[in-house]
C-alpha cells in the first residue's frame, strides 16, 4: 500500500518556523507546537509540526514502512513510537482527504 498526497491540497513550508523548529530540536526543546507547514484543502487550513511536515513530504508513493524508516534517519525517536505516531497521523490525513492510498 502506497501513500500519495492529494494533488488538490495546496501547501507550503513556513521557512522561518521550520528553522526555529530544527534549532529547537538541536537544543532538545519541545517543538511539537511549532507549525512548519500549512495545508489548505476544501477551504480548511491545517498546520503541521515538523514531524507532520516530514511525513507529509514523504507521501509521494512510499509505503508507511518506508516513511517510518526514512523518519528514523531524520529523528532520534524509538521506532515503535514513530510507527505508532506516523500511523495515527496518516490515518487522520486520510480521513481529512489530504492523502490517499493506492
Amino acid at each position: 500500500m502506497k501513500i500519495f498526497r492529494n494533488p488538490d491540497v495546496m501547501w507550503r513550508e513556513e521557512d522561518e518556523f521550520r528553522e526555529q523548529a530544527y534549532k529547537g530540536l538541536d537544543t532538545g526543546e519541545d517543538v511539537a507546537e511549532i507549525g512548519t507547514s500549512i495545508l489548505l484543502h476544501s477551504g480548511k487550513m491545517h498546520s503541521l509540526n515538523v514531524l507532520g511536515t516530514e511525513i507529509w513530504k514523504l507521501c509521494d508513493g512510499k509505503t508507511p514502512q518506508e516513511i517510518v524508516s526514512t523518519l528514523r534517519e531524520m529523528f532520534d525517536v524509538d521506532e515503535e513510537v514513530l510507527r505508532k505516531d506516523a500511523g495515527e497521523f496518516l490515518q487522520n490525513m486520510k480521513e481529512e482527504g489530504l492523502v490517499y492510498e493506492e
Partner: protein
Amino acid sequence: MTPDNLIDPFIVYWDINSSGYSDAIISIICDALIKNKIFVLNLRDLSNPVSTTVSNIIDKLARSNIKIRLTINHGAIERSMIKNLQEHGISLFTETDSIEKLLSVSDNIIANVSFLLNQKNFHEIPAVIAFCIKNRIKELEFPIQRAEEGEIFYPAHSEVDQLAHALKEIPLELLKLTVHDPFLWKVFFKREHLEGMGCNGAYTMIYIADNLDVTPCPLLPVTLGNLCSETLKEIFSSFKRRQIRKEIIAPPYECRGCAIADNCKGGCRGRTYILLETFNKKDPACCFNC
C-alpha cells in the same frame, strides 16, 4: 492545529487598474507573490477589453505554483480567451449583476460566473443557480463586495428565509459554490453553525486595491500599506497589520453569550466596520437566532 500567526498570507485578491502599472512594479509584486508562496491569486479586471496588465501578470506567474482565478467583465469575454486561459490552468469567471445579462450571453461563451449581489438582484439567486446548472457551468461565486464600489448590501432576514426556502428545491451539489458572506454561507450549505475561525482578513487573506493599497479584505478599507513604497512582506509583518488583525478577531461586545461566537467572531468584520465604524459591534447582517 491552526497557527496564531502566518509569515505570509496565502490568498491574495488584486483588483487591476485598467490604466496599468509599470512593468517594474508588476515584476516586484509577482516576484513577491512567488517568494511568499501564495496559494491563490484572485485577479479582477473589469475593463473591456481586458487590460494587457492581466496577461503580463499571468506570464510572470506562469511557472509558479500559484493558482490564478481571473474575474473579468461579463461583456469582455471571448471564446479564444477561455481556451487560452484553460491551457494555463486559470479559472475564468465573468462578473455580472443580473440574470438578464447572463441570459443574453451570445454563442454559449460561458465561463464560471461571479454574481455580484445587491438589493435589486438578491431575489434572482435561484434563477442564477438554475441557469448555471442548465448550462453546465462549473463554478458560481458570490464575490466579496468592494468597499469603494457603491452601497454595502446585505439582505433582510425575510429575504434570507425566502432564499433558504427556495434553495431546498435546487440540487446545489451540481455546482461548485463560493459564498463569502458568513450568514449566506450557512443558508447555502444548510448548516446550523458556521465553520472555521471567523474573518480571515489580514491573516490568510489580503487585498491589493487598484492603486496598490493593501487592506485586509476587499470589504475592509483599512490601509495597511502601499506596494509602490513597501514590499508585501514588510506590510504583512508590520505592527499595523498585527494590530488590525487583533481587532478583527476580538469578539465584539454584542456577541457575548452567542452560541456560535467561537466560529463566527462577529460575522463580516468589513461590513461592520464600514457600516458601524467600529469592530466592537456584531455584523448588522447577523441573522443567527433572529
